[in-house]
């Protein structure tokens, strides 16, 4: 999942739809994010490539909306409701996820195990 500047990013993603839960005055999703282009990528325990400044899921509240929807710890979030999350600041990512007028967030997430699964099932990348 390393990114080569100038080339489009290719990844195997999973679509996850999370319904926000109303708790008091807030709509919560039930997970924590880390990373961003303004953060130190070397501290990220979940990324393979330590220069990857993407947004990662660092914690999931068990029983929360994210857990129910199938989000897993260590997932890299690629898109939120159509908005790109591979090249955003940490605060921008937070804002995209916590919009008050949206009840549902549709994430595109990727993880190592997805790629492995595809590789296994296809027996290598299909090359014409």
């Amino acid at each position, binding site marked *: 999942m390393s990114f080569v500047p100038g080339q489009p990013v290719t990844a195997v993603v999973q679509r996850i739809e999370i319904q926000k839960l109303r708790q008091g005055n807030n709509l919560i999703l039930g997970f924590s994010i880390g*990373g961003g282009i303004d953060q130190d990528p070397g501290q*990220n325990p979940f990324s393979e490539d330590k220069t990857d400044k993407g947004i990662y899921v660092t914690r999931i509240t068990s029983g929360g909306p994210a857990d129910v929807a199938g989000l897993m710890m260590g997932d890299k979030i690629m898109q939120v409701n159509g908005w790109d999350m591979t090249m955003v600041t940490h605060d921008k990512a937070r804002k995209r996820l916590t919009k008050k007028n949206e009840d549902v967030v549709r994430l595109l997430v990727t993880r190592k195990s997805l790629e492995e699964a595809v590789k296994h099932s296809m027996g290598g990348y299909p090359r014409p």
Partner: protein
Amino acid sequence: MDTESTYSGYSYYSGRSRGSHRHGERSRDRHKSRSKDSRSEKSVTINTPPAEPLLGDSAVRGEQVQDDNWGETTTAVTGTSEHSLSQEDIVRITKDLEDSVGLDCRRYFTRTLAVILGLLVFLTPLAFLVLPHLLWPEKLQSCGTACEGLFISVAFKLLILLLAVWALFFRPARAGLPRVFVFRALLAVLVLLFVVSYWLFYGVRILDSQDENYQGIVQYAVSLVDALLFIHYLAIVLLELRQLQPCFSVCVTRSTDGETRHYNLGQLSIQRAALAIIEHYYCDFPVHNPALLSASKSRAAKHLAGLKVYNVDGPGNNAAAAGLAHSQSRAMIAAAARRRDTSHNELYYEEAEHERRVRKRKARLVVAVEEAFTHIKRMQEEEQKKAPGDVMDPREAAQAIFPSMARALQKYLRTTKQQHCHSMESIQQHLAFCITNNMTPKAFLESYLTPGPTLQYSRDHWLARQWTLISEASVTSGLKDGGVFLLKCVDFSLVVTSKKIPYIQMSEEYIDPKSHKFVLRLQSETSV
């Protein structure tokens, strides 16, 4: 003719940009002005270059160009300096003569009163003990052990009281203050009243009735001595301890050159505060040098010197003389404001030039002194025994090396206008002192490079030992917030303002030493 040329000069200066046809006339005018004496037509000096000296400046420059000659300057200090110290000296001497007689009288009077009071206080307990033995010895009960023990205690307490009074009161008087010292007077009255009341009681109850109980009498004497010790304690607290805690911050400014210092004083009366400030003045303030003030005086004279007011309406109107003077001064101010004068320019270049000159002379001086110091060497003990010839003591050594640095030092002192503070004799003495104590040339020069406090110079420079305290409030009243008073001496005055130190409210915050915990914050995590 004079007036016309003056006005034309002004108009040419202001209207320089217009009318090239005036060129010929202008150059003619300049010619005329230069041929005449520039001092009489001061208004035309605007056109002439600023470097032309005025009356005041030329005198100063003339001094410096003069041939360097030690004897001339050391003996004629009062004659050549612009400040005319001789007149001030005469005034000061006559004032000293007048006042010293009156002050001494007062001092002796207070001293004798104090001594009489002291004797009275000391002899009273002894008299109490001795009188019964003299007056009715047969009737008196013999003194038992307890009574004799009390004798010892009386003796030691009197000894302690004697030492304490000597320590507190019998110190050389520092100064003569204008008004009586209120606390001391109150204490003296208290002691007197106290002793008198004890005598009254003794006289009535013991002498008249001829009491036989000697132990009671001795205990009475002991109680007197105890009470005297307590009064002494009260004296210490009132006279010494009360003003130790700082309560006021006073700002002292010298009126001639603006030197300012700040001091913290306790609750003192104005006259005692003034005394404390004067003692600090002698240690902290650099010596007052009147020669440094001449430049600003000459500038001030120049500001108004270029204007002359002519009364064109005729000499008639005496009734409106006051109004005339008022309007004259206003006209002068207006004209001075309108005139474009270049005195700021002159000041800037003059100061830069002076700075450069001082630095050059300082460099020459430092080199000369360092070289002079290399000519002598301290002789060791063994060498002294071997070669007894041509050995000099410090004074002779100083005299031997002084001529090589004399010229450079004298030039430097003249440039910084300090030559009247140091006589040749004092410089040689200082040099001998530095040589004796193994000081470096830099240490020797330090007292000449920076003006030191007044105490450093010879006695005739402690120009004023006579100070006048000028105050709107009574001088025995205490310092107040926002109070102002003046300490005037012959040459200058010190302006003193006092401000109260504010009440400080301090609060406490406890930090548990275990609460200092840290965590790395390079990767932030937000829960959504």
